[in-house]
């Protein structure tokens, strides 16, 4: 794969990055090949992290969303995936239009060269002369401050944990899963998740299993409640 060398500040956010990937790889925005897009996106986010960028939460959130869409589209019945994909497509089109309009606006800024002046002073005393009820102030205060408990925006610090959280790559989980199955023994599906520490760990492990099953490197059987997983590999076949 070619070396990705984007600068993060080029992108206004995950939507911007997605549009970039779509146009760069000439994907059809109306029928996004979701797996391809997820791979591109996740690769890019990983690059950002490797280059020590302070990856914003929004990028990770989008990664999780894409992975979820990919997950449900790997299921045999994927109506949900279609809906989610449509939703994403709609949002991308909206944002693309937004960018187009922004672009157009940015070409007609000559009005910024017109200057106006404040009202002429000395004619009118601007002191306020209307009368109001105290209740109006109370209502205005409640509007402004909510119920006195309006949440102020959380401090930047509180995002550190989220932003710093390691984004678990499916690729690494493929290795982990393969290592567990290497002996050729059947392994309980659920046991693959035993050392998962985070949600994204579990999602990645699950995706890894799906990937491996899809490429027929492992087989899944047993009951739905308690399936087991086994490696399908030539070495084992020869030993037989």
């Amino acid at each position, binding site marked *: 794969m070619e070396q990705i060398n984007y600068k993060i500040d080029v992108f206004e956010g*995950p939507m911007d990055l997605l549009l970039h990937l779509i146009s760069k790889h000439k994907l059809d925005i*109306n029928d996004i090949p979701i797996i391809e897009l997820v791979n591109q996106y996740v690769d890019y986010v990983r690059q950002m992290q490797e280059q020590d960028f302070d990856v914003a939460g929004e990028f990770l959130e989008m990664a999780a969303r894409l992975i979820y869409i990919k997950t449900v589209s790997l299921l045999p019945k994927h109506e949900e995936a279609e809906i989610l994909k449509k939703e994403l497509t709609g949002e991308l089109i*909206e944002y693309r239009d*937004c960018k187009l*309009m922004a672009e*157009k606006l940015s070409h007609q800024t000559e009005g*910024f060269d*017109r*200057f106006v002046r404040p009202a002429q002073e000395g004619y009118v005393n601007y002191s306020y002369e209307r009368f109001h009820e105290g209740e109006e102030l109370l209502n205005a205060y409640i509007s402004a401050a909510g119920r006195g408990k309006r949440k102020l*925006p959380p401090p930047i610090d509180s995002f550190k944990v989220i932003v710093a959280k390691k984004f678990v790559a499916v690729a690494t989980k493929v290795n982990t899963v393969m290592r567990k199955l290497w002996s050729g023994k059947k392994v309980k599906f659920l046991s693959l998740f035993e050392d998962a520490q985070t949600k994204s760990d579990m999602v990645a492990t699950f995706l890894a299993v799906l990937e491996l099953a899809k490429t027929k490197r492992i087989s899944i059987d047993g009951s739905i409640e308690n399936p087991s997983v086994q490696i399908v590999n030539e070495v084992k076949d020869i030993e037989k």
Partner: protein
Amino acid sequence: MKSNNVLASIEAMVFAAGDPVEPSKLAEVLNIDVENVIKMLGHLQASYDERNSGLRLIRIDGKYQLCTREEYSDEVRGLLEIKKNTPLSQAAFEVLAIVAYNKTVTRSFIEQIRGVDCSGPVSNLVQKGLIEEKGRLDLPGRPLVYGTTDRFLRCFSLNSLEDLPDLPEEAEQKDDSQTSLFDSDDKKDEILKENTENPDGEVTEE
């Protein structure tokens, strides 16, 4: 009052107001018809242009305002010691586009489209007087609603929001299965028609 004097008094009032003035207010003060005032304003506009004045009378959203002619922006900046415009950021243009094309929106609506937090650019645009609060929504949290200002119209040389540029053709053709926020009304009808064959079209709106 002679008509010449009416013209001069309109000029004086528009100058003194600073902000854009409704012709109806001028008419109220002068006790004459609005139509008459608007005609006079037209004369005034023409006279500034004809004598190559450094000023011009512009019309914004049906209101009138005196401002300097853009040709002399360098000199005005020089005198006022204003640095050359720091151009708006990409984010600011995007937020402006969303606000302008939707007339009134909440910040969370903007953020939904852009997919990122927009408190910075929103605050910045409020500070620059390009968007302003238009009230609050009657929803939990009473979110603020923003709209564009007269200043926005002046800065982008628009008479009103109706004058906003249309979407480029190219874009419109490609995405006919989706209803975009930025579609013009007749475009939307088209989509509605098509949607009968393609009922999956519209899923993005709440």
